[in-house]
């Protein structure tokens, strides 16, 4: 048992953190995040030159990493800088394709960063149904709030066929596919993706017959780990910013960090962030393990933990800052929004607590 990263992984993390700190200031981020596209294509290209996506995949899939701890360090770094470019879609869509096998060209495009992909998950509220037609399928229905839907040139969509999940690769320019795009609260873009009688051939299926659930588990598992790590990265930034403010801001003639009422709140924030970090380490460790149930439980435990702690850190950091924490101009407000809204992605804290219990 040890808690040190390998040299390679530490180097990856250091490189990424430094590159983002130097080249991805909050103004740069916000210019992309609140633009119509919800990200900056030029920045996306620059970041990809660092090989970020390749780090999320193993050699068989064309990458150079791909373990749970690789996903952890990459997304912690992305979260710390509040990166809004479509890395989550690349991870989830790519992991689905890698799990299913085939579609090698699309996977290669995703791993190299040339292809922007979105993972259109079935959250149960808006099932898209597939009906058999010839060798392939006809799709109808709408996927809600698909991250970076407008930017994506391919969708990996989870649809329902006779009650079972079916994973399909759908190019965005397929006839009958339309996207209603919008910005999201914390910056970035998403869209409702409508499939109106979309016809797909047999080759659209990701994986073999009956593999749908396993592919969904692979993709969503990676996504849960990534979101949990991203949240911890964002928490670390917010913690440092809030501590800085407690030291600098003076009222009643002293730094406000001298007041015990604020110190104790900050100590609690620190403790809970450490616990969240541990939850992500547990999840990254189980992610690579052989025990499917332990993996699923650890992922739900992590997402539950960061959902709860994310809201705590967001709310406490705003309160500890006072009015300045409420302003658009100040970086913490955007982090706080992300930390709260991350609970709305891939199942919230209640969902994952229930899942954790059901798996017990």
């Amino acid at each position: 048992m040890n808690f040190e990263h390998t040299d390679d992984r530490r180097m990856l993390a250091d490189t990424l953190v430094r590159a983002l700190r130097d080249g991805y200031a909050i103004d740069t981020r916000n210019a992309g995040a609140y633009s119509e596209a919800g990200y900056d294509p030029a920045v996306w290209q620059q970041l990809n030159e660092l090989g970020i996506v390749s780090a999320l995949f193993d050699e068989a899939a064309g990458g150079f990493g791909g373990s749970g701890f690789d996903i952890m360090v990459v997304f912690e770094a992305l979260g710390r800088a509040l990166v809004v470019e479509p890395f989550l879609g690349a991870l989830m869509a790519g992991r689905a394709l890698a799990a299913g096998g085939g579609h090698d060209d699309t996977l290669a495009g995703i791993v190299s960063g040339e292809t922007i992909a979105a993972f259109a998950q079935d959250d149960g509220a808006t099932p898209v149904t597939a009906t058999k037609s010839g060798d392939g399928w006809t799709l109808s229905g709408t996927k809600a709030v698909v991250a970076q839907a407008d930017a994506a040139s391919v969708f990996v969509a989870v649809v329902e066929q006779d009650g079972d999940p079916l994973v399909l690769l759908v190019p965005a320019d397929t006839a009958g596919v339309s996207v209603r795009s919008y910005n999201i609260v914390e910056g970035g873009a998403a869209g409702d993706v409508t499939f109106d009688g979309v016809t797909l051939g047999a080759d659209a299926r990701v994986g073999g017959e009956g593999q749908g659930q396993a592919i969904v588990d692979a993709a969503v598992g990676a996504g849960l780990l990534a979101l949990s790590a991203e949240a911890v990265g964002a928490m670390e930034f917010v913690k440092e910013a809030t501590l800085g403010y407690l030291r600098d801001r003076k009222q009643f003639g002293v730094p406000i960090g001298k007041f015990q009422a604020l110190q104790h709140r900050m100590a609690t924030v620190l403790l809970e962030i450490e616990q969240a970090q541990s939850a992500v380490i547990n999840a990254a460790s189980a992610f690579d393990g052989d025990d499917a149930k332990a993996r699923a439980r650890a992922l739900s435990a992590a997402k539950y933990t960061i959902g709860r702690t994310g809201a705590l850190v967001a709310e406490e950091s705003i309160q500890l800052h006072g009015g300045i924490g409420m302003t658009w101009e100040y970086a913490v407000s955007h982090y706080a929004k992300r930390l709260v809204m991350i609970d709305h992605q891939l199942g919230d804290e209640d969902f994952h607590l229930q899942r954790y219990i059901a798996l017990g």
Partner: protein
Amino acid sequence: MDLSFTPEEESFRDEVRAFFRDKLPARLSTLVREGKRLRKSDMEEWHAILNERGWLANHWPEEWGGPGWSVIQRFIFDNESALAHAPRVVPFGVNMLGPVLIKYGSEEQKKHWLPRILDGSDWWCQGYSEPGAGSDLAGLKTTAVRKGDVYVVNGQKTWTTLGQHADMIFCLVRTDPAAKKQEGISFLLIDMKSPGIEVRPITLIDGEQEVNEVFFTDVEVPVANLVGEENLGWTYAKYLLTYERTNIAGVGFSIASFERLKEVAQTQKKGGRALADDPLFAARMARVEIDLANMQTTNLRVLAAVAGGGAPGAESSMLKIKGTEIRQEITSLTRRAYGSYAAPYIPEALEAGWNGEDVGPEDAAMAAPSYFNNRKLSIFGGSNEIQKNIISKAILGL
């Protein structure tokens, strides 16, 4: 990063498990599992078994009788110990005084006192708190005035845990009343049989006599029993407290008591089904279980970060707060789990050796007293609020 045990750690764990299986008397593990109060002889019996194997003081250096374990080995041992329902090691000599003597004691003191801690010749208790010095520990008023070869001690200590069994007490005393309060304190070892010492029991909220008041009237203590230098006792006192707090995290105890809670939740019924299947209770249990799994990793991260395997500094305050919150929550859920049968108060049922007929489910009598007793966790060893002060200053730099 790798959370799985290495083959060496696995085989160490097997060795530890085999030891508990072969050497832990069933009578003792049953008492611990049922949450009964142990007698002095029970605790001494277990200490002797551990000492025979060389595992009693598992964080001491090998030179002084420690086994030379890594932090991970100690963690494994503590976990397995709790899971096997072994009695706790009584901390005052082994975990508190031992490290202070090893770091600050003279050669003669180490040679004299350390073996006596191991072989059980001396039962130690802790003379820190006073009626007027709780959270403000440095405000203590018990005085020691040097007269020739002795210090003459006057004053009062309180909350002295298991002091009724003790042969010796390590005490913080004021040797320089004129100095700033932290700078006039010394660390003295005092024989409990000295003339002028009186021990009075304090009965706690659960009816147990676990703690005492200790009064000192013109008690003479040989100068040789001063640890380190006169007036530097506060440094030694704080060093001791970091050890005390790390142990308070009690991850192993939480794991064992959570396992017990799961069993109770399976057998207790609510609305015609097992309590474990009640969605609200299941959610309460799942929350604390996740917190505990996170805590286990937090604990290991803190220990792994300590170079040389000593005691962590202010990070032990984080472990203390979160660890005690979790332990308290588990005792709270266990109390709730027994429903109305948590109410009957059967003091004799709490004692080791009682063979009467249970009222309600087995062990129900222990649930509420244990919950109330464990309110102490967030108070002693420096209250959790004091820990937050320490975190603010030492970790957050506020």
